């Protein structure tokens, strides 16, 4: 192959003739970009001997001669003219007839890479050439200084660690388990991509602490980790969660995302609450947007608003409409609106058009008066990770109650029916074309999700305990109960009650 030895013939050539001829040949016949150069290439790239535009055409580096490799016409030229170097006109590799192989040269490679990149740019090629990583001498030294290697096999448990309960902190432990098993977040932190924005006191940065947490989880240690620093930081930055009482895991999740998002952007500058302007890793992964369409019942005019969303809080139990009816009327109303029994039911209810009632009239801009209207939510931009919160805890002034009814949830979820483009709402444009587009016979459906973590609450609203199921690799599930990690079956996961459900977009991969 390309010998790692230096070709002395090539070195001599470079010393005598320089790099110019190589560059010229490359530019004129390999990385062509203009109409004129293409014409020249078409006419001239012919084997001088067999007079045909062959494959594996080579150009002599010493003189103007093109010869094909397969019929050895370039070899003949080399022998008769004593020109021992030729470059292949497909990729620019240089063949040395004395060494009888293609030889590697850094200088020539640099020219080739530069020209290729330039040509790709002119032609508007979106994907740049992939070059294998080659360590620099610095990186080699780092690798030598740190000889310990971890081998990740299919059944390795790296990434799994229990978390010590510091006093009713199971709500935090579950969320940590879910986050450390969010693939994109894991990749971000393990690739060391966080740059701390805390100028004054980096020890206060929650993102840095998260990074350290990931290091702990993927260190290969199997003993449970004690996340006291994390707890301290959360108490500091989210005061409402401080204290040793049991907190709500969902509240903790939202507070954590919020603090991480803020710390990604730093403490300097104005706090911009609009995720549309933020490109931090939290927003990249968790933020989607909801479209809210309000239809005036009088003129049927639609007014749409797009709002960012981090997670979906889904109502369970009888709908507000039902409860209003039951409360207001003494007579029994026969209603066919049943309570949701599955995640899909919840999402259907979430995206159902809701009549806003006579007490909540909206001012219609076209009617110029207050009118009754319907409101409908749908998904405009899907987040990479969709988190669903089943509202099992009712906190009203009258009672605290937990809805423990079983809500089934799938392993694979298709969000297409809840998309703004699908629901349409008299938008007129039939833009569902993107839903059914195909590439190579495979449906281009970018709306499919796969379950990767479930947080469960067991017990009553006063005394309860949180546990989490997380998925490792593609299909291995584990139950995380504070410091105890146990293998679980996917059926166990799907049979569990479900409080917080985490799905991530499926990436289509070939086998």
């Amino acid at each position, binding site marked *: *192959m*390309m010998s790692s030895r230096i070709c002395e013939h090539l070195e001599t050539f470079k010393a005598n003739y320089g790099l110019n001829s190589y560059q010229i040949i490359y530019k004129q016949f390999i990385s062509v970009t203009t*109409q004129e150069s*293409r*014409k020249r*290439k*078409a*006419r*001239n*790239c*012919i084997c001088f001997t067999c*007079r*045909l*535009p062959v494959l594996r055409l080579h150009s002599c580096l010493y003189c103007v001669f093109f010869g094909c490799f397969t019929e050895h016409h370039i070899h003949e030229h080399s022998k008769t003219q004593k020109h021992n170097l030729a470059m292949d006109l497909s990729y620019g*590799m240089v063949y040395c007839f004395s060494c*009888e*192989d*293609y030889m590697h040269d850094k200088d020539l490679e640099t020219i080739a890479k530069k020209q290729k990149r330039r040509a790709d740019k002119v*032609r508007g*090629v979106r994907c740049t050439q992939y070059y294998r990583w080659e360590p620099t001498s610095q990186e080699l030294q780092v690798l030598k200084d740190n000889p310990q290697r971890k081998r990740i096999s299919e059944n390795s448990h790296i990434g799994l660690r229990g978390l010590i309960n510091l006093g009713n902190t199971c709500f935090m432990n579950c969320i940590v388990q879910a986050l450390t098993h969010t693939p994109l977040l894991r990749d971000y932190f393990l690739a060391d991509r966080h740059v701390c924005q805390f100028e004054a006191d980096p020890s206060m940065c929650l993102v840095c602490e998260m990074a350290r947490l990931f290091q702990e989880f993927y260190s290969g240690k199997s003993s449970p980790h004690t996340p006291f620093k994390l707890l301290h930081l959360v108490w500091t930055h989210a005061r409402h969660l401080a204290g040793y009482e049991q907190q709500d895991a969902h509240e903790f999740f939202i507070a954590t995302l919020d603090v991480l998002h803020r710390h990604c952007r730093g403490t300097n500058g104005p706090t911009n609450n609009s995720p549309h302007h933020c490109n931090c890793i939290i927003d990249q992964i968790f933020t989607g947007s909801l479209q809210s369409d309000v239809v005036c019942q009088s003129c049927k005019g639609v007014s749409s608003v797009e709002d960012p969303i981090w997670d979906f809080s889904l109502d369970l139990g009888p709908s507000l409409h039902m409860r209003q009816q039951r409360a207001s009327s003494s007579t029994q109303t026969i209603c066919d609106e049943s309570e949701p029994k599955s995640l899909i039911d919840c999402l259907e209810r979430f995206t159902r058009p809701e009549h806003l009632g006579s007490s909540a009239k909206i001012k219609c801009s076209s009617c110029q008066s207050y009118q009754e209207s319907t409101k409908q939510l749908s998904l405009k931009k899907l987040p990479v990770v969709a988190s669903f919160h089943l509202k099992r805890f009712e906190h009203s002034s009258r009672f605290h109650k937990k809805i423990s009814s079983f809500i089934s949830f799938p392993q694979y979820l298709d969000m297409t029916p809840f998309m703004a483009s699908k629901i349409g709402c008299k938008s007129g444009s039939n833009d569902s074309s993107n839903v059914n587009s195909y590439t*190579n*016979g495979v449906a281009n459906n970018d709306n499919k999700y796969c379950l990767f973590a479930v947080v469960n609450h067991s017990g009553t609203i006063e005394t309860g305990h949180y546990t989490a199921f997380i998925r490792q690799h593609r299909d291995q599930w584990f139950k995380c109960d504070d410091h105890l990690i146990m293998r679980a079956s996917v059926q166990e996961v799907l049979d569990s009650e479900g409080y917080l459900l985490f799905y991530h977009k499926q990436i289509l991969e*070939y*086998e």
Partner: protein
Amino acid sequence: MADMDRNRRMVAIAKQNLIESGEREQLIQLLRTRLLECGWRDQVVMQCKDVVRDVGVENITLDKLIAEVTPKARQSVPDSVKRELLQKIKTSVSNQSSFSTSPFNHN
């Protein structure tokens, strides 16, 4: 014999027209993408590694590699990819207007 020559010349002209119009470059990009998508490229890379392992890193040359891997690699190109490219080439070539200049007269 003359037919073979004529065919070869026609293919050569068609190829040169494709180069001139820039379509050949586009077809190559398309082919590269398809071969990458279906996993063919990775398959061939593995084959190459196997050959290098068998022959030995010190003894291997690109020529040997090409000789060993090409037949099987050619054969394992999926039919769907072949069909797609063939269709595109047919379309491009049939759209070519005949060029009267022979490329063989440039000397």
